């Protein structure tokens, strides 16, 4: 591409330079020229990170110079990196120039299209990106939700045929005292080309009905060596398998993606074998024997205890009756004693009442007798006053016929003829003398 504006102008008189040119045209030419620079990777230290809605700005510096950089915000966000001042990064991109306008300032920047943390390498960055994506899809969970048999009869193992992992797994299983069926699925475990073979082996093991758990193991190595276990297709395969997968790949500093999606992640193949068989068979046998003994004891004790109880119950009625009889006798004795106490108390109380009555009666009779005596005297006096005897004593006489019938008149005396005159000291017979004519 040529530079028509710049090349075709005649030099100005002063200083012999071409132009003058419109600055906007020059700026546009400059932008095009800068964009022609080769796209490269740069390494440096991040400084002055500034996030705007559309772009991310920062400077990339080293001991000898610096460059303003910018990146589209959405591209930056997709990386999932937290950029901070002082961070050593590698950026990929090319030069760019914003020519500005009458109202805005121009600016130069290195347009960043790729960015990664320096030192960890491409693999680690890609791995982190994939890890975030798989995690966001929820693929770390399904394996962990699978039930794991404590005592599997059949275990599948995917590992290298000549690797040390094989011996380690056997040692781990032996330590558990486990002697079931082990199905080896040998596969290359060295590089990313091994991933499809490993995935195929896993699928075949999972398709074998008796396989209850699968171990994927290798003895470690650099992250590049372990990259096979970061393969996206392999990780997706593992995440969706029906059997739990126990991974033992690499080590803590280089955690592979299969470690994240697997049901369990172990640091060594030996541990993976022990995780596949959580039960120590010898210890389990001892515990089982103890359980059996305790069950026996409980059964025997229950029967003996109940038998004793029944025997006691069978003897109980006689003792119960005797106890009741004794109790009844006791009650009877108490009842009698109570009745006696009650009678004595009653007698004493009655005697008291009698004495009180006597006292009261005595007082009443005396008074009544005096009163009656006085009354009698009074009546005697009254009667005495009317006594004919007393009247006859004073000289009066009672006239009666011979039969003794009182005669109350002279005519009656005359008629009777024979009279009896009763004086106070005796009777005198009398005869009515014939009346002399007057």
């Amino acid at each position, binding site marked *: 591409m040529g530079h028509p504006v710049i090349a075709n102008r005649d030099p100005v008189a002063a200083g012999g330079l071409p132009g003058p040119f419109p600055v906007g045209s020059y700026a546009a030419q400059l932008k095009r020229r800068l964009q022609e620079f080769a796209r490269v990777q740069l390494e440096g230290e991040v400084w002055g990170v500034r996030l705007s809605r559309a772009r991310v700005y920062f400077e990339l510096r080293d001991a000898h110079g610096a460059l303003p950089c910018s990146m589209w915000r959405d591209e930056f966000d997709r990386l999932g990196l937290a950029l901070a001042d002082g961070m050593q990064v590698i950026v990929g991109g090319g030069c760019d120039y914003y020519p500005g306008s009458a109202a805005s300032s121009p600016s130069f920047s290195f347009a960043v299209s790729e960015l990664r943390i320096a030192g960890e390498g491409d693999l680690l960055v890609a791995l982190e990106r994939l890890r975030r994506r798989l995690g966001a899809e929820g693929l770390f969970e399904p394996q962990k939700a699978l039930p794991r*048999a*404590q*005592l*599997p*009869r059949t275990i*599948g193992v995917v590992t290298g045929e000549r690797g040390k992992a094989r011996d380690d797994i*056997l040692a781990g*299983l*032996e330590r558990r*005292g*486990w*002697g*079931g*069926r*082990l*199905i*080896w*699925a*040998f596969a290359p475990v060295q590089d990313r080309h091994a991933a499809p073979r490993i995935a195929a*082996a896993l699928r*075949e*093991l999972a398709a*074998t009905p008796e396989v209850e758990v699968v171990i994927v193991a290798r003895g470690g190595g650099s992250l590049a060596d372990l990259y096979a276990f970061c393969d996206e297709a392999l990780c997706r395969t593992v995440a969706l398998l029906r059997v739990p997968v126990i991974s033992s790949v690499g080590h803590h500093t280089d955690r592979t993606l299969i470690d994240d999606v697997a049901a369990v992640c172990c640091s060594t193949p030996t541990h993976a074998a022990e995780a596949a*068989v959580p*039960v120590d*068979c010898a210890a*389990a*046998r001892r515990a*089982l024997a103890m*359980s*059996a003994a*305790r*069950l*026996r004891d*409980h*059964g025997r004790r*229950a*029967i003996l205890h*109940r038998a004793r109880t029944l025997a006691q119950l069978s003897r109980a009625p006689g003792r119960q009756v005797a106890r009741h009889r004794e109790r009844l006798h006791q009650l009877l004795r108490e009842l009698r004693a109570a009745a006696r106490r009650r009678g004595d108390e009653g007698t004493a109380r009655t005697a008291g009442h009698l004495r009180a009555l006597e006292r009261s009666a005595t007082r009443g009779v005396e008074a009544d007798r005096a009163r009656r005596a006085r009354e009698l005297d009074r009546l005697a006096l009254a009667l005495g006053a009317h006594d004919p005897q007393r009247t006859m004593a004073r000289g009066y006489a009672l006239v009666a016929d011979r039969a003794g019938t009182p005669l109350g008149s002279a005519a009656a005396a005359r008629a009777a003829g024979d009279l009896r005159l009763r004086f106070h000291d005796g009777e005198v017979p009398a005869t009515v003398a014939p009346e002399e004519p007057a």
Partner: protein
Amino acid sequence: MSEPRTYESAVGRVEEIIRRLDSGDAGLRETLDLVREGRELVEYCASELDAVSQGLEELRLDELVARLEHPAEGRG
């Protein structure tokens, strides 16, 4: 419909039964039933342990697949 029996579920149930018996709250009938159930589970667990104590049997997946695909040859 009950869950299929597994070694771990059986061991868990045996422990539960022993706890119940240890509590002394179970009557005679329940005790005898629990003891019977517990013995049966212990026998099951023992059989499971026996099954993985017969000595390690190692197979290769490719051989196993071949045997499954061609059972006659496998037997021969």
